[in-house]
C-alpha cells in the first residue's frame, strides 16, 4: 500500500515537473502568435519565411532543431510589390571574438546556422551579398538570434520599432519572381502581415 502511494507521488511529481517545463506562458504566446503553418508549405527549410525562426528553433522549442541565428532575405523592401525571397545570398557574420561564419540563403530566402557549426558570442555584425550587391547592417545584433524579431513587415503598430524586412536590393523589382526551381511556389511569405 505504502509502495503504491510512493509510486503515485513520484509519478505525480514527474508529470508536474514536465508540465512546468513546457508551459512557459510567455514563450507559448510567442509561438501561438506565429499562427499555423501555411497549407501549401510543409514544415522544413522553406516554411515560415520572414518569421522569427528561433522562437520555435530555440532551447524552449517546440521545433526539434535549434538555430544560433536564422532569418530570411528578400529581394526588395516590398514597398511597391510583394516580398519575394531571394536565393544564393551570402550572409556573412562576425561575432565579438572576431569569429566569422558564412551561410547562404535557400530559394525562399531562408538561412539558418546550427549551433554545432557556429555558436556566436554576441554582439554580431552582419553583411549580405548577392550578385553585385552588398548590404551591411547599420547596427550590430545585440543578442537576438531571430532576424525576424526586429525585421518585421512594417505596419501601423511597429513602424517605430522595426526597420522592415531584410532586403538585398534597395528598390523593388516587379519582374523578380524568385527561383523558378524552388519546390515552394510562390516563394513569397505566407502569413506575414504588417502589425
Amino acid at each position: 500500500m505504502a509502495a503504491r502511494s510512493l509510486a503515485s507521488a513520484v509519478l505525480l511529481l514527474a508529470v508536474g515537473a514536465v508540465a512546468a517545463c513546457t508551459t512557459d506562458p510567455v514563450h507559448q504566446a510567442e509561438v501561438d502568435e506565429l499562427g499555423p503553418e501555411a497549407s501549401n508549405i510543409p514544415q522544413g527549410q522553406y516554411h515560415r519565411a520572414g518569421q522569427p525562426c528561433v522562437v520555435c528553433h530555440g532551447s524552449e522549442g517546440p521545433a526539434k532543431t535549434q538555430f544560433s541565428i536564422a532569418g530570411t532575405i528578400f529581394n526588395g523592401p516590398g514597398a511597391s510589390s510583394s516580398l519575394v525571397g531571394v536565393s544564393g545570398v551570402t550572409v556573412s557574420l562576425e561575432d565579438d571574438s572576431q569569429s566569422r561564419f558564412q551561410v547562404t540563403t535557400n530559394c525562399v530566402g531562408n538561412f539558418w546556422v546550427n549551433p554545432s557549426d557556429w555558436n556566436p558570442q554576441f554582439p554580431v555584425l552582419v553583411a549580405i551579398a548577392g550578385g553585385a550587391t552588398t548590404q551591411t547592417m547599420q547596427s550590430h545584433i545585440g543578442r537576438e538570434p531571430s532576424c525576424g524579431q526586429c525585421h518585421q513587415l512594417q505596419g501601423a503598430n511597429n513602424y517605430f520599432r522595426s526597420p522592415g524586412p531584410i532586403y538585398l536590393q534597395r528598390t523593388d523589382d516587379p519582374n523578380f519572381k524568385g527561383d523558378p526551381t524552388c519546390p515552394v511556389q510562390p516563394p513569397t511569405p505566407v502569413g506575414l502581415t504588417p502589425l
Partner: protein
Amino acid sequence: MSTLVTRAALLALFCATTAGAIATVGACSSFDPNRLTEVAGPDYNQFKGVLPDGGLGTGVSAMIERRCGTLDCHGQVGRPLRLYGQFGLRFVDDAGNTPGGPTGGQPTTETEHQANYQSVLGLQPELMTEVVQGNAPPGALMLLRKPLQLERHAGGAVFVEGDVTYLCLTSWLAGQTDFTSCQGAAQ
C-alpha cells in the same frame, strides 16, 4: 505553566503585530506626494553632441544609441534604460506621431536626445547626483558597472576600462566630454 507561557507569547505576538501595523500606517500617512527629488546631471549639450565651438558632433547619446540602443537590447519599450535613435526605437508622442519617422528614417530628434538623457539619469538619479557633485566615484554607477560586467548584464560585457566607449562615458560624467572617443565608439 506551559499554557501561561503560550498565552503570554501569543499576547506579545499580538502586541508586536499591532505596533507594526500602526507604524506602517503611520509611515504611509506621512508620504508627501509633492516632495521632489532634485537631480543633478552631467551636461545635456555635451550628451547630445554640442562641441565646444558650438558645432554638432558625436556625443554620448549617439554613442549609446549605437552601442546599447539596438532594437533587441535597450531599444525596446519594456527595457530599463530605454533608448531612442535613428536606427533603433523611435519616439512616439502622446498624439501617436513619430517626428523622427520610422526606424532608419530621420536622424535622432531633440525629443529623443532628451528622452535618452532622462533614461540615463533616471537609472540611478540619487547616485548620479552624488557622482556629478563629486561625492561618489563614476564607477559606482550601474551605467558603467553593467556594461563592464561588474554586475549581471544580459547583454554581456559591452566595453572595457580604457576603451573609447568607456572614455566617452566617463569624460562626460566628469564634465569634459571626449568627443573623439565618442565618435570612435559610435562607429
